[in-house]
C-alpha cells in the first residue's frame, strides 16, 4: 500500500500542537506504518516537497515569511488542516494585535531588555501588522481547534484521512 504523505508546519505558535501530535502514545506506531512524514520540525527535510497529501499547520500567520511559507504549502498540499487555536483563531499570538508593531518591538527589545537594547532586523522576518488565522490567507480544508488539540483527536483525524475518510464533523472540538 502506498503511504500517505504527511507534513507538519510550525508558524507563530509554541510547538504545543506538535507536542500533542507526539503525545498519541502507542497509536503513533501503527500510524507510522501508514504515513510518510515528509516535512516539518520533527524531520530533517529542508524544502517543502511537492504533492503532499495532508499538511497540519500549527500557529498563526504573523510575519511575511509565514505568508510565503503558507502559500507554498497550500500550492503543494491536497488537504490543509489548521492545527490548534493559533492557526484557527489567532489565539495568544493575536493578543498583540491592538498594539502597533513598532511600539511592540520597542517595548520588548529596548525598554524591556537588560542589555543589547536594539530591535533586531537582520535575519528575522518582518512582522505583519497583526497575527491572524490561516483561513484569512489560504483555503483551509479542516480546522482542529484546541490549545493544544487533544492527541486522540489528532490521531483520529490522521488515521481517518489515511483510511480515505474525510469527515467534517464528529470530532470533539473545543477552543482553548
Amino acid at each position, binding site marked *: 500500500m502506498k503511504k500517505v504523505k504527511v507534513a507538519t508546519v510550525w508558524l507563530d505558535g509554541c510547538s504545543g500542537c506538535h507536542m500533542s501530535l507526539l503525545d498519541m502514545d502507542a497509536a503513533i506506531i501503527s500510524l507510522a506504518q501508514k504515513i510518510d512524514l515528509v516535512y516539518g520540525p520533527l524531520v530533517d527535510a529542508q524544502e517543502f516537497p511537492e504533492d503532499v497529501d495532508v499538511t497540519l499547520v500549527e500557529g498563526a500567520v504573523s510575519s511575511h515569511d509565514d505568508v510565503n511559507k503558507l502559500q507554498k504549502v497550500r500550492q503543494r498540499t491536497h488537504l490543509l488542516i*489548521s492545527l490548534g*487555536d493559533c492557526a*484557527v*483563531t*489567532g*489565539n*495568544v499570538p*493575536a*493578543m498583540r*494585535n*491592538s*498594539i502597533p508593531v513598532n511600539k511592540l518591538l520597542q517595548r520588548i527589545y529596548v525598554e524591556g531588555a537588560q542589555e543589547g537594547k536594539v530591535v533586531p532586523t537582520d535575519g528575522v522576518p518582518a512582522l505583519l501588522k*497583526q497575527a*491572524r*488565522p490561516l*483561513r*484569512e490567507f489560504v483555503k*483551509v480544508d*479542516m*480546522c*482542529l*481547534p484546541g*490549545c493544544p488539540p487533544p492527541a486522540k483527536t489528532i490521531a483520529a483525524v490522521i488515521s481517518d484521512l489515511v483510511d480515505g475518510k474525510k469527515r467534517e*464533523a464528529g*470530532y*470533539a*472540538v*473545543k*477552543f*482553548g
Partner: protein
Amino acid sequence: MPKKKLSIRIDGELINAVEGQTILQAAKANGKYIPTLCDLEGLTPVGACRLCIVEVSGTDRLFQACTTPIQDGMSVITTSARLTHDRRISLELLFVERNHVCAVCVSNGRCELQSLASAMGISTVRFAYNYPKLGVDLSHPRFVLDHNRCILCTRCVRVCADLEGAHVWELTSRGIHSRIVSDLNQRWGDSRSCTNCGKCVQACPTGALAEKGYAVEEMVKRTDNISSLVERREVQV
C-alpha cells in the same frame, strides 16, 4: 386566583403550560432543551444573546424563547436547520467581536460560551476577527472585569439590580461600542454603590468577571447559587 392552564405544542408534542410562562419556561418545565446564554433562572429575561430563538408556526419570524409568552394553541419548533444556522452565526459573532482567548482564561473549561461552541461543533468561525483594544479593570480589591471576554449578556447588570438591589452595573454606548460600566463609568474599585457581594461574578457566563488570584482554568462559577437565592427570597420576576 389560579393561573389559567394553556396547552401548546413543542416539537409536535402536546404540553400543558401555565398562562404567563415564557416559551423557555414551558420548555424547561417539560424537559425540552433550548440553548441559552444570557438567560439565568431567577433573573429578568432580556433576550440579549439570541441563542434561544425558536420557530412559531403561522409566522416566518423567529422568536426568543426567553422573552416570548406562550399563547394557547401555540406550536413551537426548537430544532431545525434554519435555527441551527442562525444560532451558530450568533455564537460566531460573539467570538469575533472581542478577544476570547480561551487558552489563557480563568474560566477555560467552565465557560458557557466555550461549551456551547463545543456542543454545536464549532471548529472555526466564518467571519474576520475584530481584535479590539479593550481594557481590564483591576481596581476592585477582590474582583476583575475583563472587557475582552464580555459578551454583553447583562447577567451582572440584572443580578445586581434584581437580587442585590445595588444597581452598580449598566450598559453604556451602542452597538459594537457597548460596554459594561460600574456606577457612572467609574473604576469598579471606586464604586460607592458596590457592596462587594460578588453575585455579578458568579452570574457571569464567561471569564469577563472573575475573582482575583485565580490562574487559567481555576475559576469556578456558582450560577446555581444565584438561582437558589432567588428561589429562597421569593423574588418576583
